[in-house]
């Protein structure tokens, strides 16, 4: 019988390695979800994303919108009662896609007005977070 979303331990290890965080510490209290200012715009809440990482459900995690609408504001990190730096976990998930050369933002497709209007810190940080 074919398994749906088979558990991938190498995926869990990669997230742990890049983020430096002990994923197993999370006991699913949901404080991170409550802290996230972008909760209304996401598909999976931070807690739900974390659970899927713990279970090694790679496809669910890499196809989620959550890591890509995260603005690294660190509210989740600041409030986690287990001391997990959730922002680093989000970054690790983004990097796993970016390191396969899958860009989320395409600088060459940005309208000229946007580039002229925005300050450098907006553009550079967007490219740093969202391009390979």
């Amino acid at each position, binding site marked *: 019988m074919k398994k749906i979303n088979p558990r991938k331990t190498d995926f869990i290890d990669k997230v742990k390695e890049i983020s430096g965080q002990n994923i197993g510490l999370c006991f699913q209290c949901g404080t991170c979800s409550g802290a996230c200012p972008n909760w209304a715009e996401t598909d999976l809440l931070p807690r739900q994303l974390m659970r899927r990482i713990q279970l090694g459900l790679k496809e669910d995690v890499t196809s989620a919108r959550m890591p890509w609408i995260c603005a690294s504001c660190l509210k989740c990190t600041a409030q986690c009662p287990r001391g997990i730096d959730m922002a680093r976990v989000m*970054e690790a998930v983004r990097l796993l896609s970016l390191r396969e050369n899958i860009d989320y933002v395409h600088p060459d497709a940005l309208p000229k007005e946007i580039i002229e209007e925005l300050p450098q810190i907006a553009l550079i940080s967007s490219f740093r977070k969202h391009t390979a």
Partner: protein
Amino acid sequence: MKLSYLPGCTLKTKAKDLDISAVAAMAALGIELEELPRWNCCGTVYSFAQDDLMHQIAPVRNLIRAQEQGGKKLVTVCSFCYNTLKRANILVKNDAEKLKTLNTFMDEEPDYKGNVEVVHLLEVLRDDIGWAQIAKKVKRPLTDLKVAAYYGCTLHRPKEAAIEPPNRRTALPELLETLGATAIIFPEDNTCCGSYQIVANPEIAMNRTRDIVTSAREQGAEIMATSCPLCQSNLRQMQKKLKGKEGFEEMPVIYFTQLMALALGLNPEVCHFEMNAGNLQPLLESKGLLPVGASL
């Protein structure tokens, strides 16, 4: 007193008003902000990845420039530069091996020794000058001006890089009160403005702008003070988009350094108000802080 100063890229272009008003206000307080002779981009965002040292080169190179200038402190005004440099500094001070790798890689540079302290301008005002000294120099008190003290993220998170202990946001309100204004504390004062999501998901910046401005309004603020050029830019641009939407009332946004320059009695020209949102002038005029009809 002279202090090494890193303005950063945005303060030389889209946020010139922040740079010029900061330098002028500090000069009026007797501190010369001495710009580093050859600074580079700080990298804007601190790299979170454990296996990525490449993105620490830019901030550490700036720390080497500060070391060369000889001062103990490196002052930043931009919240992004502050956070990135502060955290890179913490990283290399606590990890000798990573510092060695970086120093070896930048073999054209002198080694960074880890002795520079990265500070934000608000810390200099609070710790090196003090509110009492600033109060003595206020010539045009910001009486009756109700200013929301908006911190954004990077002056307070993570806690090891914060300018104050967690959940104690007092430096900015205390400065505003020192300048004669009424500081408004509001629930969303450290909520993210949407940051770099303005590029990929502008609706997030728009929704956060609505949350932040509405929260400040509800507490009675009529103007918002910021330190971060990206907060300023997002709040400015997204408010234009929110204009006329039900239940939304615009609020002018100003840098705390512009308010300082005004209160210290400097020529309003150093504030470059022409760069701020359009509805700033009528408010400042109505409070007697600007000559009526002044061309900005």
